């Protein structure tokens, strides 16, 4: 029985997304997942919340909890997506992948899908800990709107991750690049510093990055602002994620072309 193109691509998307995610975590035991994806981000969040509380003499804990909880989306967005794409080279499956006639667009974006879900879970866990341990007040928050904000922010961060993943095909220092971008987001995203207090060039960088508008939206929602008033921020966040994702796809296509032409599929 012949499948039509849409069904075939949907199956490829789902299989690709599941298999790449399983390949990334299959060698790990749940405890490693807990340590790297749950406890590490939470400890990082608590560190910056305590530092922020110390800086503001305890007045602004909610501001730091929300900023750092949303920032946790980038653990999946940056590290997860990058490793999913770079993992094909490390595992030696890249030549087989490029040898298939499969739709590259579907393969490429499929690598990020599970990490969007994973990242959202990470943010929700962080916010829950924020409520339980740090006294985060979400009583005035439109929770479905906050859920939408988390979804869009995680998606846009995964867009950056897709671009970073392609860069990981070109460099041997993947961990350095990933860590650098991840930690830089702590400065530029506004998770810990009011963007208005940054120098102009840093504000410009901040406005071109994912997370910035997502964090601002989440803080506004927590302050009781309705969804309608932050919709432009969310559209911009979504757009930024799409731009990064598309840039990543173009780089991926260029990499495949170059690698095939030069016979450098598994080298950097």
């Amino acid at each position, binding site marked *: 029985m012949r499948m039509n193109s849409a069904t075939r691509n949907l199956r490829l998307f789902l299989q690709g997304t599941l298999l790449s995610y399983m390949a990334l975590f299959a060698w790990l035991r749940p405890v490693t997942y807990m*340590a790297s994806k749950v406890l590490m981000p939470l400890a990082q969040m608590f560190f910056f919340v305590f530092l922020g509380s*110390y800086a503001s003499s305890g007045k602004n804990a909610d501001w730091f909890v929300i900023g750092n909880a949303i920032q946790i989306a980038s653990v999946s967005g940056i590290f997860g997506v990058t490793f999913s794409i770079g993992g094909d080279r490390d595992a030696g499956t890249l030549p087989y992948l490029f040898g298939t006639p499969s739709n590259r667009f579907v393969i490429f974006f499929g690598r990020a899908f599970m990490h969007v879900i994973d990242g959202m879970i990470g943010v929700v866990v962080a916010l829950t800990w924020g409520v339980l341990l740090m006294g985060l007040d979400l009583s005035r928050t439109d929770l479905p709107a906050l859920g939408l904000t988390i979804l869009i922010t995680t998606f846009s961060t995964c867009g950056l991750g897709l671009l970073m993943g392609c860069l990981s095909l070109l460099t041997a220092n993947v961990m350095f690049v990933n860590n650098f971008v991840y*930690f830089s987001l702590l400065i530029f995203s506004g998770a810990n510093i009011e963007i208005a207090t940054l120098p102009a060039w840093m504000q410009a960088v901040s406005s071109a990055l994912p997370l910035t508008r997502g964090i601002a939206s989440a803080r506004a929602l927590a302050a009781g602002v309705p969804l309608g008033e932050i919709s432009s921020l969310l559209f911009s966040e979504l757009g930024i994620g799409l731009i990064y994702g598309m840039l990543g796809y173009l780089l991926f296509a260029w990499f495949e072309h170059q690698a095939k032409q030069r016979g450098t599929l598994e080298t950097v």
Partner: protein
Amino acid sequence: MNYFNFFKYWRTVLIVAEMSIRTQLSDGFVLFAIVFQPMIIAILALFMLKDKGGDFAMFVVVGSGLTGLWSSLLFVSGSSISVERWTGTLESLVGVPTPFDVIVFGKNLANVFQSLLSMVFSYALAAWIFGYSLTLSQPVLFFVTLLLSMFAFICFGLTIAPVFVMYRSIQQWQNAMEFPVYILCGFLFPIALLPGWTTPISYLLPPYWAALALHGTSTARMPFQQTAFCWIMMILFSLIDLAIASQLFKFMLYKARVDATLDVE
């Protein structure tokens, strides 16, 4: 572990340290841990704590430097034995007449020494980029404290590495151990902010005493009696760590030989 081995084999310790520095400074991950991550944390803290007044910039320089020391100790020293296993050199190192713990001591010395770069870079960042005037309130006491802190960190690292090699279930928590120590040891904010039940845990961590004394001698004009108490605690913990490390190394090497698992993950 024979403590006199460190003096008897001092040339080996220095050669191992030199080799380690040459190898590690070309490793992007190590460079990130000892230079870039502490600088990013310093930038964050300089922006966040700017209203604290006083000597906050010096406080940030020392605190962010300590984060680099700990991250490097955790990830680089913690893996100092495992990395030899990955590169296939562990059997040779265990087989040579030089005691294995002397070799790991040299590696940790290199690691802690190069981690001081984090403090140097944070100082340069605060002084040159942010334009703060930085002075040490008790420079002599600060440098004595720094030396003792280095020794305490090296000894602490000697206990971590064999544990990570023998018990992979503990090494799996490596990623999650980084920030809790930043928090519990008061690197960038006082532990008084934390719930009271965490205070005894802080007291059991050598980096806490190092942070207390380094902050105290750099910015707070800590009374000498308090500084001396921190020194005593660091020396005490160093000796305890050496005694624990001694047993751990013996057990690790015995177990590896009996199980024939020296080069097996």
